[in-house]
């Protein structure tokens, strides 16, 4: 359905299934892309929004291992943790994902590294949530700033009016 001739991230969320699919191509060989996912010193350089600082409490990217990290912005801290169900070098990573602010929610994420040849890699990420509501909450989480800004603008209108 979508062409992938340019490297921009593509994403799809089936209305009927609690999943999110992400695909992205990289101008780097599989080994490097894989290493950037398992080496915590590299992970902290890219994972998470630009506005936060990432601190790793635990990062054992091996089959049966686990991770826990904090995204900090000012006084706010967002903690995440999960287990590495399977880490298959250069091929795939299967892990659970929980945001501690919503401890009942857990997603299962499968990251697949596809060798495109010529030193290029295609990354596939599939996240499976327990419910479509949980999936929608994850999708909507990025809207928080937008909502706050929306309310601020609404407040201004009310004051002016």
């Amino acid at each position, binding site marked *: 359905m979508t062409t992938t001739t340019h490297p921009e991230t593509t994403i799809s969320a089936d209305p009927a299934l609690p999943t999110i699919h992400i695909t992205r191509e990289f101008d780097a060989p599989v080994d490097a892309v894989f290493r*950037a996912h398992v080496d915590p010193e590299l992970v902290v350089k*890219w994972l998470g929004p630009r506005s936060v600082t990432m601190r790793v409490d635990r990062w054992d990217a091996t089959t049966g291992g686990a991770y826990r990290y904090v995204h900090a912005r000012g006084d706010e801290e967002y903690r995440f943790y999960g287990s590495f169900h399977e880490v298959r070098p250069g091929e795939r990573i299967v892990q659970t994902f929980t945001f501690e602010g919503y401890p009942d929610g857990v997603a299962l994420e499968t990251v697949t590294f596809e060798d495109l040849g010529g*030193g290029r890699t295609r990354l596939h990420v599939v996240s499976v949530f327990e419910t479509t509501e949980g999936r929608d909450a994850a999708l909507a989480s*990025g809207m928080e700033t937008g909502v706050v800004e929306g309310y601020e603008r*609404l407040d201004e209108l009310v004051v002016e009016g």
Partner: protein
Amino acid sequence: MDDQLSRVFSALADPIRRDMVARLAVGDATVNELAEPYAVTVQAVSKHLKVLEDAGLVSRSKQAQRRPVHLEAEVFDLMTKWIERYRREAEQRYRRLDAVLAEMTGTAGSAGPVEAPEQSRVEGEAS
């Protein structure tokens, strides 16, 4: 457009209204049917409906006597906006990963373009 979005969000900020929207996603319903599961009056439910209607989330048929409430496709536009925001965040993350990878593989400016001969390859065989 953005005002519409903030109206939608304030409309959906209330748990009863969110629940009503979820039920209307399954099919149209009358005010009485919508009021049934809640310990509030039909009037209160009508008020909630008015908020949803003003936000463009639902509409009510003028003709039919039962005046069933109908969920508008706007909700799915909103969904598209959520997804696009999420996608853009992922893209930003992966651009930082691009930079990390460039550092790792030593292609950060020093090595020069190596990929040029590969460029005329398959354009993607998607239909």
